[in-house]
């Protein structure tokens, strides 16, 4: 354990504590930092760009809690109902997840192009429009993401006692009723855990947004991580960026704490 603890202290705990410290300074990322107390947090409270990015993160989280989770549940349940080609579909669903996000984003950027892609056919500029850009980036991210949920939900569903389905079928329950009354309650810990991780990952989301739009057009897809990146490396305001990071960590911390309370009360193993 000691080597792991040492490495963790060096690359995780140390930088984390430093980030807390720097969030109370005017550090530019270079040289010494000057303590400015809560100034960064006070500025954050009145920063329209921060509010805009936070709102986009909230929309992003809602989208990923609803759309891919629903698709993942449906896809997994559908796979439990078939016997042939199950492995083929699992691989097909999972494949986009293992492709590097930069490649997936670049492919979709070309596919959606308003000059030579789907955008040209539909006369829509998906990534240039203020209203379409955020849903488009979320769609591309989801394309790569939902297959992962299928595989995890499928694994959980395969652990459900098959006798329950047989009994339900004898009682006349159809597929939807079986899903609602047997499958969902049986996989509730997995469902809740993925919901928790979805919230955390949604607030950390960066790669697809950065590759496809860099937070643009005009801030239409800015999220907290792109704002943090811009403040740290473009504006050279590492102290302020650390404060943004602290807010992100706080949100994740609250979500994890809530999950742990529920988990203890419900006595879940996951």
């Amino acid at each position, binding site marked *: 354990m000691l080597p792991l603890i040492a490495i963790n202290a060096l690359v995780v705990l140390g930088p984390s504590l430093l980030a807390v410290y720097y969030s109370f300074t005017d550090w*530019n990322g270079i040289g010494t930092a000057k303590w400015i107390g809560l100034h960064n947090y006070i500025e954050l409270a009145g920063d329209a760009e921060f509010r805009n990015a936070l709102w986009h993160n909230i929309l992003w989280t809602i989208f990923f809690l609803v759309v891919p989770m629903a698709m993942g549940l449906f896809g997994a349940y559908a796979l439990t109902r078939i016997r042939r080609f199950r492995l083929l579909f699992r691989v097909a669903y999972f494949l986009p997840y293992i492709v590097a996000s930069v490649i997936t984003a670049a492919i979709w950027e070309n596919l959606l192009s308003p000059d030579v892609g789907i955008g040209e056919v539909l006369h829509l500029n998906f*990534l*240039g429009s203020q209203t379409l850009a955020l849903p488009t980036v979320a769609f591309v991210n989801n394309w790569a993401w939902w297959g992962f949920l299928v595989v995890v939900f499928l694994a959980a569903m395969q652990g459900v006692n098959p006798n329950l389905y047989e009994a339900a079928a004898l009682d006349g329950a159809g597929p939807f009723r079986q899903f609602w009354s047997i499958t969902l309650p049986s996989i509730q810990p997995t469902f809740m855990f993925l919901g928790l991780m979805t919230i955390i990952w949604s607030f950390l989301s960066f790669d697809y947004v950065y590759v496809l739009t860099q937070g643009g057009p005009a801030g239409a897809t800015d999220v907290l991580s792109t704002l943090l990146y811009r403040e740290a*490396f473009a504006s050279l305001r590492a102290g302020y960026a650390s404060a943004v990071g602290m807010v992100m960590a706080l949100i994740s911390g609250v979500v994890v704490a809530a999950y742990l309370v529920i988990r203890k009360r419900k006595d879940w193993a996951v």
Partner: protein
Amino acid sequence: MTISRRNFLVLSGATALTPVLASCGGGSGSGGGLQYWSAFQNQQQQDYFKKERVDAFQGSAKVRLTVKPTDTIDRLTQTALAAGTGPDLVLTAGPAQVAAYADAGYLLPLEKYSQKYGWDSMLAPWALAASRVDGKLVCLPGGYETMIMIYNPATLEQHGWKVPTNRSEFEAICTEAKAKGLMPVASGNADWRPASEWWVTFALNHSAGPDAVYSALQGRTRWSDPVFADAINLLNGYYQQGWWGGSVDSYFTNTFPNLYTALASGKAVFMITGSWATSEILPYFGAAAGNDATWDWAPLFPLRDGVPAEVWDLGIGATLSVNAKSANPDAAAEYLNFLESDPKRQAQGIAEASLQPAPIQLSAADFPESVDERLVRLYTRLSNAATIGYTTWTFWPQQTDTDLYTNFDKVITGQLSTKDYLDGLDKVFQSELAAKKVPPAPAPSGPAK
């Protein structure tokens, strides 16, 4: 020999950490010779630099070139300097970054080397002025650039247009071009969001004028002044008419390759860009692209009466400094002098690898015979510029610059009024001015040489 469980764990930890810590080390002075980290646009440029600027150096120490990725070299250098190591020669993205490094004590003052090698008389005064922090010379410009207008002569000829020399001529062509379904100005920021500042630079220097910009950079005029509001309103109007990139939505998704292609094919008329584009466009014109398209350039024109006919917006694309922790600062300065001096070497770099030259006086005689005549014309006129303008990425402090291009996108999408945009910009600028973060700027008039 036996080993206790406790000692085993401690040794295991040390073994695990060794490569981690080792990877943090190295840098200045290690391994002998001078360490130099650089990044290049392409392999041809890298090979040329290695041969003509590294291997050809016959100074008191051997130079060891390490090539870093273009998009991460700044952060790698910053991390290494913060760790007390890094290369002997420190490459930065511009004066704003230099100021931060100098404040942190990472850079060696270069005054004694300036006297030794005569940099005061060799380099353009504006470039030397921009290389000082708190009055101390801490860097030299690694290369300089300017804003120009690139066009396809065949496109102008086909439609009976001439290169515009003033606002009314420019607007007349843009109006006609738009009516014909052409893109008047090939522009977009999909590949590089900060590109918006290129056109803000154009508007500020050629509408408000370099005197007004200089005055504001000195803190004597506010950015909320009507002269700047007029400039931003004018530029925003161009966007709203679809002259910049076709439409506001298209502007955000136009990529540079598509824009260069449009210029070569005659679907776009002008491109207002930096001198770096003279190398980037080459694959899209002529034999390299399988077409017979050609390109040429012209200086930018005034957008308001009273602004000089020719204003050369100068920018420093990269700077070079000597690491304060260098084990061999004299050799590092000697190599710095090698990179900056000799007009023929600078001209050869332009001709053979499209390298940005150091800001020294260049004449046509300095260029090799094989050089592209358009580049000779550009750099000889530039080095004799009578009036200079100010590129925002060189002379604006870092946070103001970031707000300048980030929020300008909100002006063209209607989220922000020109007044709110400039008020916000001025607020940030005044705070950075008070914190002495504004890079020094030379006066606009007089020879730049």
